[in-house]
């Protein structure tokens, strides 16, 4: 299988001033292939977000090599990373991170603006994507006029609109009640079925069971990396 992500011995340390250092990642090596659905689990502070930020090109490793679609990302400069983030990566955050003063449409259009897509096409694609996440009737609502689940769906639409190679979600259900969390997971399930590659951070086993593979982190190390045996799917979830 073709690898989208190849991490080799990734180390991330934070200097806390003086000799003190936080070892957030201590040599992580992992490959993730096309159309995989991976859950990253682990206790708080184990380095899940740090790893996601590096995979998402928001952050660069202190040492180690990162190949994204075979391209060495660890040596890229700020602008090149911004371009990768814009075109290849769709990020979904725990706290939604929508622009508060902008409506759903503008929030979803934003990555297309930075991609230089002309406005008519931008509008069309953003509208389509919002319809795709069942928000066709909330296009002109601002985040504070939407429920938590709806906000997260706007965020998913924003992540999807550029048709990225990979979707990264850092605890996407962390701020949602279990029912709306379940709705978001159904959406991810559907996106995966349509061929998207998804990496998801969570510390809830229920949520992780939607994925096909679980990577467990502890103190910046990979503790385990195994396929999900008792997988929960959209239809199974419905049936149970």
């Amino acid at each position, binding site marked *: 299988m073709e690898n989208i992500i190849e991490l080799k011995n990734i180390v991330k340390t934070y200097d806390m001033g003086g000799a003190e250092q936080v070892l957030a990642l201590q040599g992580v090596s992992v490959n993730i292939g096309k159309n995989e659905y991976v859950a990253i689990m682990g206790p708080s502070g184990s380095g899940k977000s740090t790893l996601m930020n590096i995979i998402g090109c928001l952050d660069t490793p202190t040492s180690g090599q990162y190949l994204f679609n075979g391209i060495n990302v660890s040596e890229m400069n700020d602008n090149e990373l911004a371009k990768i983030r814009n075109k290849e990566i769709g990020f979904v955050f725990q706290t939604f991170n929508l622009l508060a003063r902008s409506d759903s449409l503008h929030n979803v259009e934003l990555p297309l603006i*930075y991609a230089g897509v002309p406005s008519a096409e931008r509008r069309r694609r953003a509208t389509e994507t919002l319809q795709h996440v069942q928000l066709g009737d909330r296009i002109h609502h601002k985040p504070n006029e939407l429920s938590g689940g709806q906000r997260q769906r706007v965020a998913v639409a*924003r992540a999807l609109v550029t048709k990225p190679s990979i979707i990264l979600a850092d605890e996407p259900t962390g701020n949602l009640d279990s029912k709306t969390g379940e709705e978001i997971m159904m959406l991810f399930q559907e996106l995966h079925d349509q061929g998207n590659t998804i990496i998801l951070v969570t510390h809830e086993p229920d949520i992780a069971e939607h994925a096909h593979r679980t990577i467990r982190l502890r103190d910046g190390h990979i503790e385990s990396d195994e396929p999900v045996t008792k997988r929960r799917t959209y239809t199974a979830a419905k049936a149970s």
Partner: protein
Amino acid sequence: MAYFLTELREGLVISIRAIRANKMRSVLTTLGIIIGIVSVTLMATAIEGVNRAFEKSAEAFGTDVLYIQKFPWVSNDDWSTIRNRRMLEVSYAARIERQSMFAAAVAPVVATGRRVTYGDNSMEGGFISGTTSQYLATAGVSLGDGRFFTAEESNGGRPVCVVGATVVENLFPRGDPIGKTIRVSGFPYTIIGTLEKQGGIFGQFTADTRVFVPLNSFQNQFGGRRDVTIQVKVADLKQLDDAKLELEGIMRTIRGLTPGKANDFNINQQEILTQTFAPISLVIASIGLFITGLSLFVGGIGIMNIMFVSVTERTREIGIRKAIGAKRRTILMQFLSEAAVLCLLGGLIGLAIAFPLSLIVDQFLPTAMPLSVVFISIGISLVVGLISGFLPAYRAAKMDPVEALRYE
């Protein structure tokens, strides 16, 4: 390029939205720029007014008229060496007229301060000038109503006069001065003509406060032994320097100066005034614009300050934008355009306030807000915005996306 325009437009949209979201704060922030632009434009308008007033006054002397006089207008020489010069005499005028090739008109002028009355109306601080019919041709003033005196009236010493605009205003508040007989120190003179208003800043040199009478009459009534100015109009402005040399020669002969002796007279011209005024004007303008420019500078600091606040407040927004692909340049542009829009807004409001105020300045100085000032001040506010917005925008642009997203 298309990408740059999209970015610029997005930057403008975001800034206008941000400014509207903080209306009160934006207005208060731009206050510094508004005050700065108002003071700079008004200062520029006033300076323009002073310059125009000067030019107008200097025009009265005529660019092509040479003034042969006992003393120089502007001098660095020791006063003691020129104080005892002999007076110039009326008779020189005729000799100069005969001998000069370059002169188109020559008029001797003598003057003295006198009280002028008409009925119950009187004017203090007026001057009476005795001259010949050629005067008008040698002066930078034009006839209003009536006519100037003729050679016959001039030679015959007729009791006629031509009066300046201020004289008319003072003695004939209801107008219609032609044909009326005024009294100068009790001597009657009949007005045959008036002069157009000259204005200007050289108070006692202006023709406005003068009564012009035939030279012979002047000498009969007010005494003959007076210093004379001989005004020479040069036929061709291009030959002004030649004319000056020629007149110097004629004058030296008249005065009987042997070679090696210094001139005991001066040939003055308007250029002396403009040359003297230009550096003074420049200094006034520089100081004035510097002081008012300071307020604009303070306004710029205010913009910078509020932009820093804005960047900090929107740290998370910056993180979001970077996370979904905004480049450093894009963020830089966003905040730069916000600062520029704020300053432009301030500049335009400032102009809107300054313009009616400039109409008030207009009452005191012959000026109007120059169009160039309008464009320059718009340009200045834009530049102030870009400069004061740069540091905050740069800070925003180089934020680390992860750090920015973690900002509470």
